[in-house]
């Protein structure tokens, strides 16, 4: 049984249904990439894993989220709070504002381990210093005493990661952890996270819109489009032989070394608004290969030559 098992999750917020029928498994020592454009339901899926949907007025309409044998969907807020930070940690999108401006860096990391592991002040400090060093920040003692405004964005993000690791969680949910950073720092931080996950045998759910990050870090990928799973496969297979036209387009969006100027294209059009998803396949208005059936029938996720995809085309090709 996987550490985290998300089954057929549909999320409702008021009258809209931004996420429908999302399923995936995540095991210890594994890094799962959840990829998609803005508005594809990545963050909402992450929130359902943290039991945070009620906070934004959302709810799980169908499906279940099972973590280590516990159903998070029906768990009390108290029970969830005990899990958060201790067993499941969230690394949020914005390192610049994720730290309390008037509390020293050290105290902010310390409090996670005092709260969850019951360490005394000295033990918590030693642990924090160790974590800071593991995140390859020079002069841990000095950083431990610093205030957030004295650090750069990349350092702050590392501190946020240190806070997430402080209570030794089993699962880390990282919601676009490097979006606010520049590319060189981004690659560094992703590498640090990958190394830590491998060393400690953690499970990492890495949410991103960047296929480059996926290629660098992940073992498996779930591609979301307009709130549904478009394709899921291992990283090697998905880059070698993408089954869904959307995945193919996403991969084409990664800039390549030596690429001719002007040849890097985006995907034309936009993710449709959750208020008016098109009938049939939700990607068909933007799909260059759409055929008649794509406009009429919503494709279901099914086994393809490799992995799973929700596309009529590959099916046609297989036949």
């Amino acid at each position: 049984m996987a550490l985290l098992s998300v089954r057929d999750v549909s999320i409702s917020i008021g009258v809209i249904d931004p996420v429908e029928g999302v399923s995936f498994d995540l095991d210890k020592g594994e890094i799962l990439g959840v990829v998609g454009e803005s508005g594809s339901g990545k963050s909402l899926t992450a929130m359902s894993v943290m039991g945070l949907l009620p906070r934004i007025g959302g709810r799980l309409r169908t499906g279940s989220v099972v973590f280590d044998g516990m159903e998070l969907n029906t768990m009390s807020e108290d029970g969830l709070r005990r899990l958060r930070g201790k067993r499941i940690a969230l690394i949020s999108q914005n390192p610049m504002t994720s730290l309390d401006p008037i509390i020293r860096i050290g105290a902010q990391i310390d409090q996670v381990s005092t709260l969850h592991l019951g360490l005394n002040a000295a033990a918590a400090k030693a642990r924090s210093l160790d974590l800071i060093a593991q995140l390859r920040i020079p002069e841990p003692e000095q950083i431990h005493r610093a205030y957030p405004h004295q650090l750069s964005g990349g350092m702050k993000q590392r501190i946020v990661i240190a806070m997430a690791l402080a209570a030794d969680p089993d699962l880390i949910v990282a919601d676009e952890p490097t979006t606010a950073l520049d590319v060189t720092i981004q690659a560094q931080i992703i590498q640090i996270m990958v190394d830590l996950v491998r060393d400690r045998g953690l499970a990492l759910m890495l949410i991103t819109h960047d296929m480059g990050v996926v290629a660098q870090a992940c073992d498996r990928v779930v591609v979301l489009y307009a709130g549904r799973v478009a394709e899921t496969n291992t990283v090697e297979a998905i880059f070698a032989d993408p089954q869904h036209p959307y995945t193919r387009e996403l991969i084409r969006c990664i800039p390549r070394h030596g690429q001719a100027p002007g040849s890097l294209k985006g995907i034309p059009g936009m993710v449709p608004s959750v208020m008016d998803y098109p009938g049939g396949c939700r990607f068909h208005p933007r799909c260059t290969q759409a055929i008649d059936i794509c406009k009429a029938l919503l494709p279901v996720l099914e086994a393809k030559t490799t992995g799973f995809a929700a596309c009529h085309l590959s099916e046609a090709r297989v036949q």
Partner: protein
Amino acid sequence: MVALTALRTAVGSPRGAIPAGILVFIVACAVFAPIIAPYAYDIQNLPGSNEAPNAAHWMGTDEFGRDLMSRIIYGARTSLSVAVTAISISVVAGMTLGAMAGYFGGAFDRAVTAVVDLTWSFPEILIALILIAIIGPGLQGTMIAISIAYLAQFTRLTRAQIMALKNETYVEATANLGAGNFHIIFRHLLPNAITPVIVAGMLATGDAIILEATLGFFGLGAQPPTPSWGAMMSSGTAQIFIAPWIIIFPGLAIAITVISINLFGDALIEALDIRNRLRSV
């Protein structure tokens, strides 16, 4: 920390240094009254009543022949201790109420806001008078009345700040790492919200001294022979034409104290750069 640095800046600026010096002097008078005061505050000397300021009695004597300067020095104890205690109670209670209301919202917030807005719509003196009528006159009654009269101000100020702060990403991030409500309120929200409340408390202390003096003037505050600046002024009204110093010196003491507090408060606001945050109430 931020507050301490600002305090240093305020004391260092010319606008803050003078009022700060005066305040230190007044507080020293209150603390060391038995050492500084040339006479006891309650020794009567009827033959020497209503004496004008002279070498033996620098501020003259009152209608019972008591040394006015000694009584003003001891009076600083009453005024300052009542005002500071009352405002401290008010700040602590107001911050707690405001933080709970702002953080939890819902029915509790609506109830607190309704009561606070109701008291906010009356002048403090009226509320204090009504409360003293219920509690009865005296030092303790004055303290309680003043602290309740100023409660609305601190509750509103804290609530407004907490409502803004609770949506900050770092608060969410802490909650996502499993922090409970009380940890979030006391460890993250209140420390970030406290600065303007402290300054508002400082300025309110000046107002509270006037309020205490007013209640004392009406005979509702400290009871004789305990010296209080307000009560001294009140007894001076009868002698205003024959011994005007009896009413002038306590009046000056009140004016100088309150003006110093207000000027220092202004310097503090300047140093903390929080004029906008204070305007929200």
